[in-house]
């Protein structure tokens, strides 16, 4: 077991709606190790996006404790990169200026980060697009720019909220491979990789990317299953057709739909 980066202990979240209090999350306990790639899968409205924001310190949990790198999270923590479902780029800024935004917001000298920003754009296959405005790029390219922005300050933790959810299926599969490459699957030692918490609706996407898939139940969101995905890295396109891949997918599907995990046998 590697060192723990994220620790959730009996985390709950209740908010006040017009019709009374709504329990969005209940009794979530989860530990994520340094360099681990963990996906959160669950039906719409199960609170997985909320959970991501609780980890970031953007929303306060109403029960339990959250720690990141041993520190209890009470307010937004700066050492994270966030990627959302929409690219959320500033449409009046060039791609390069968008990637540099975190440096400016964090009160750093943006000019000092320029070489790193350009290097990230290169790595994401956006060389030569730095001067373009967001609307001149396709959805997939915009999302890659958003990923570059999240990586600019080299955060140890990446929080990704359905980042490929708005893309078409083909682009989506490409982006998954791309993400693993940028994450350093091939060339970075496991402990040196970034920890990723990845929210998705797609079971195959979760299996393909993750070391672990955490399945959440509908409201109030609870952890229904926590599966280790023992597939070799680097992950390849061929892997999607393998028997093991199918077995994991089925197992997650069963956990999601609440049917007992039987034949798969790994639980």
């Amino acid at each position, binding site marked *: 077991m590697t060192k723990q980066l994220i620790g959730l202990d009996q985390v709950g979240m209740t908010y006040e709606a017009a019709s009374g209090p709504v329990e969005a999350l209940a009794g979530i306990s989860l530990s994520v190790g340094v360099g681990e790639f963990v996906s959160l899968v669950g039906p719409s409205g199960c609170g997985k996006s909320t959970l991501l924001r609780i980890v970031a310190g953007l929303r306060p949990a109403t029960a339990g404790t959250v720690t990141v790198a041993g520190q209890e999270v009470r307010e937004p923590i700066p050492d994270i990169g*966030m990627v959302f479902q929409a690219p959320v780029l500033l449409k009046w800024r060039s791609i390069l200026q968008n990637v540099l*935004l975190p440096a400016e917001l964090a009160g750093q000298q943006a000019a000092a980060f320029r070489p790193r920003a350009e290097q990230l754009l290169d790595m994401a296959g956006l060389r030569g697009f730095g001067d373009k405005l967001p609307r001149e790029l396709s959805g997939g390219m915009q999302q890659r720019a958003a990923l570059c922005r999240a990586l600019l300050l080299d955060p140890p933790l990446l929080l990704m909220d359905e980042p490929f959810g708005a893309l078409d299926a083909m682009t989506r599969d490409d982006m998954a491979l791309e993400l693993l490459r940028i994450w350093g699957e091939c060339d970075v030692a496991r402990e040196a990789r970034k920890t990723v918490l990845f929210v998705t609706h797609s079971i195959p996407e979760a299996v393909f990317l993750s070391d672990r898939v955490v399945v959440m139940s509908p409201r109030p969101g609870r952890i229904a299953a926590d599966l280790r995905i023992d597939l070799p890295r680097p992950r390849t396109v061929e892997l999607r057709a393998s028997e093991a891949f199918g077995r994991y997918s089925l197992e997650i599907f069963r956990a999601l739909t609440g049917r007992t995990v039987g034949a798969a046998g790994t639980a």
Partner: protein
Amino acid sequence: MIKFQPLLRQYWPTVALFAFLLACWQLAVSLGGIREYLLPSPLAVWNALWHGDTAWTQHIWVTTLEIIGAFFLAAGVGVALGVAIAWSPLIANALVPFLVFVNTLPKVAIAPLFLIWMGYGIFPNMLMGALIGFFPVVINTAVGLSQVEADMLDLGRVFNAPKWKIFAKIRIPNALPYILSALKITATAAVVGAIVGEFVASQKGLGYVIVTTQSSMNTSVAFASLIWISVVGLVLYGAVVLVAKLWAPWAEGID
């Protein structure tokens, strides 16, 4: 380089219709025996526009000055109020009902009060134009400042960016297209305000010229003045549209 061919193709019907109407008008006046003081012929208006006894340069200058002053006053005060409203809920609660009340007042009805308070001059007329034109700027500024994606604001919070920085880097550029869109309305409202002000109290200006023609029955001069007013109005409006295009080229489909 402007291509004239397509322009010609698109606008020749407009030009043709306009020429036809002018010709009908001219014929109706010269052949139909309509009295000159009721409806002057286009030729008479044309003559009044360039010759005649009216010191056009002076009047155009005064009215233009009033309109531009009104425009910048409305823009400055409008943006400032909009920012204040978006900055603090307390200010918003205090200000918004009051502004809505001011906006529902028929501003034209206040013009005689301006005469009592400030007498004759350019400034009261500027103020009238600004009063008519500032409200859309306040509303659009406040709306543009608040219409920022929640995820973008989360991004700001993650990096602990101070409030002023979020305003400077995210909210204000986001509001710019909204503000520019409101300024197009202000450009037209400033013209109305300046002319109304001149109707009530003035010794110079294109509105003043129209008022004086009432007693002299010099209708062709009134028509000529109308044409000058629309020229000034169009130029200002065109300038705002141009500035909006250059300043916020990313803004498409907001107005």
